[in-house]
């Protein structure tokens, strides 16, 4: 990986995949993955916001004072989300209907503020845009994968086309809310079993708690538990 721009794409898609490795943005992942097509819609709208927010924040990184950077980021992200929301309502009304409340909620998606804080405010605009593309596509792929599994098992279709034979009764629970928890849990179990360390684990071991995202709560809690266990021994 010599080219650092290509390296950013690889990083977002695989090495630090935001959903499967960093475990960020769980709310939209669980909520909109009822259909594979919804996963693509949500993933690409988040990607658009992420690329633009990374670009704007990177351009303004020397202008925004450090003390007020988080409120500034939130305003930037919220403006971009509003623009995306209005554009989708006008040009893609069916996708807008299907995703509903989760479009404005992109504002509070940890991935976006997390990347602003961890990457875009320290790197050049071009690198930040590549980071946005990589992370966004990584999110899109994970969402679509979860959507595909749920749609096939729960509805017998993939992207709306029948794939399971008609005689097989689909397992309806997979397109209901409980199915989301089960599918994502199985994804993480598989990753744990084949030995891919989620970044959460790595952070716990390295004793750092970066970012200011909700995932940090998970990290800090597990870290304290590890410390307690170590103290007992």
């Amino acid at each position, binding site marked *: 990986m010599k080219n650092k721009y290509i390296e950013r794409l690889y990083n977002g898609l695989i090495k630090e995949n935001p959903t499967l490795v960093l*475990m960020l943005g769980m709310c939209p992942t669980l909520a909109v993955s009822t259909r594979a097509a919804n996963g693509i819609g949500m993933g690409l709208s988040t990607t658009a916001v992420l690329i633009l927010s990374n670009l704007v924040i990177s351009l303004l990184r020397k202008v925004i004072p450090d003390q007020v950077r988080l409120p500034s980021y939130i305003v930037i992200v919220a403006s971009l989300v509003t623009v995306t929301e209005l554009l989708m309502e006008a040009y893609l009304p069916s996708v807008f209907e299907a995703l509903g409340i989760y479009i404005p909620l992109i*504002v509070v998606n940890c991935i976006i503020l997390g990347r602003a804080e961890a990457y875009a405010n320290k790197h050049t605009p071009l690198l930040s845009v590549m980071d946005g593309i990589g992370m966004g596509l990584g999110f899109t792929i994970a969402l679509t994968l979860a959507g595909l599994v749920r749609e096939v098992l729960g509805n017998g279709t993939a992207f709306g086309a029948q794939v399971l034979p008609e005689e097989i009764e689909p397992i309806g629970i997979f397109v209901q*809310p*409980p199915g989301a*928890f089960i599918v994502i849990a199985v994804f993480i*179990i598989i990753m744990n079993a084949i030995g891919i360390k989620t970044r959460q684990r790595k952070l716990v071991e390295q004793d750092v708690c970066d970012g200011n*995202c*909700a995932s940090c709560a998970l990290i800090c809690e597990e870290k304290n538990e590890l410390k307690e266990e170590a103290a007992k021994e």
Partner: protein
Amino acid sequence: MKSLILIIIGGALINNVVLNQFLGICSFLGVSKQMKASASLGGAVIFVITIASAVASLLYDFVLAPLGMAFMKTIIFILVIAALVQIVEMFLKKKSPAVYKALGIYLPLITTNCAVLGVALTNVQNGYNFIESVLAGFGTAVGFTLAIVLLAGIRSRIHEEDLPAPLRGAPIVMIAAALMSIAFMGFSGLAL
């Protein structure tokens, strides 16, 4: 009167914010290890969501809608919520240091708790008036508290079990949440 009660029950049980709509998953999974911390977080969430729904509803009805700036609601709401959380934090720090200490780093996370923004936006979408918005916010927050306290109870039992290594941590919690979600689906059968 009946419709107001329905809003509360609907928000707390039938459309449970965590188990049915997946809002606030991060804190639901992150802060549910100890019963006490989850109950305190639940209390803070009830407080913040109820006030945020009230403020957001007033802002929307008397400022944003008359000025034709309804499209600004996402930006305005998120800023109002961020400010509110700061105020709650300062209030708790001064008035009840014990609760403040128990919640520690979790309190600022309410800002990124999508349930707060989600409720404010849903209220506007449903065209609720002021009282309905406050009650819907309260009901939703009670639902969140109920879910997180129940999960904390389940997790304290799981904690003692000898699990296969890949299931430890997040996966088993999600499976517990899935079972809770199935149980909560039963509420949709309530004849209201």
